[in-house]
């Protein structure tokens, strides 16, 4: 994991442009991130990508932390910080000015139309993320079962996701996955 400045520049440009596409949040963007870092750049395998995503879920903080880990995987500590700044900087600036502009938006109706139009797109993207990750992670019937149980736990109960992940890790050690 040596960090040449060319690699760091490539990380900065890739993650900055990805984050400006992240309508619906980082989770909605996972298939696209996967496509870029695995298929286009060849920085890691699909399984390594799924592992890093799981590690990011086990740590505290926003889901966007997976970006820091992807940067770390490619170019160490410097890669992690470059990826994090690239993923959060430009979109934060855009957000700052967009919200200032939104206060002057013409009509309430236009705002409502925009929110109702974007919600299904965001939800469809989040399903696509779960599907992409499941395809990368589930190589056995046991793993598939853990995915289904994890989905059910979040969809139908109020259990803290950390316990779901911890239980799944224990099941993995026991040989289920």
């Amino acid at each position, binding site marked *: 994991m040596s960090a040449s400045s060319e690699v760091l520049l490539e990380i900065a440009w890739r993650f900055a442009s990805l984050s400006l596409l992240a309508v619906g949040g980082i989770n909605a963007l996972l298939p696209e991130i996967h496509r870029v870092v695995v298929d286009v750049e060849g920085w890691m395998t699909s399984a390594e990508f799924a592992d890093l995503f*799981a590690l990011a879920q086990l740590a505290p903080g926003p889901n966007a932390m997976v970006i820091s880990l992807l940067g770390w995987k490619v170019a160490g500590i410097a890669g992690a910080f470059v990826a994090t700044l690239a993923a959060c900087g430009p979109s934060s600036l855009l957000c700052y000015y967009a919200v200032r502009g939104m206060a002057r938006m013409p009509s309430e109706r236009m705002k409502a139309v925009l929110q109702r139009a974007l919600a299904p797109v965001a939800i469809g993207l989040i399903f696509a993320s779960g599907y992409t990750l499941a395809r990368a992670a589930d190589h056995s019937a046991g793993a598939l079962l853990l995915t289904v149980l994890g989905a059910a736990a979040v969809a139908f109960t109020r259990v803290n996701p950390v316990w779901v992940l911890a*239980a799944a890790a224990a099941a*993995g050690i026991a040989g289920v996955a």
Partner: protein
Amino acid sequence: MPGPPAAPVTQASLFRAFLTIGLLGFGGVMPWARRVLVDERQWLTDREFAELLGICQVLPGPNVVNLSVILGARWQGPLGALLALTGILFVPVIAVLLLATFYASVAHAPQARNAIAGASAAAAGLILGTAIRLVRGARPPPRGLALGVAVFVAVGVLQAPLLWVLAVAVPLGIALEWRAAR
């Protein structure tokens, strides 16, 4: 834009609040953001929080990062936005790197590999479960469901580049909702 919070939000309390949110947010930050901002600090009502989330979803970038920028800017201007952003990112970046370094040192052990295989299978499930919850909460009309399914198939199954999918789906969604709203 809703009015000012009940208690004045200082720069220090702003930073501390978002530091807490970042520190506690295991398995997703949003529930913790609501708890700290609405229940504990009472800086926002539930309704204001939900409306802000909608805006954060519409804008590109990580949702909770956008939330910190919007609220920091609202209460303490550009410096506030920077303080809230730093607060929510700083500890998590350090924590996740420590965890990754630790994982790299034990990754050769079969137990570690098996544990992470189990956790990553369940993590995929957490995302799918969140999407199911959103569908049940938002109750989109048939036209919204159809659009959502089309986006899922294009991006998830066919692996189409996101930019092209958005370039088609977003104008289509706006046109459908605009017609329905008339």
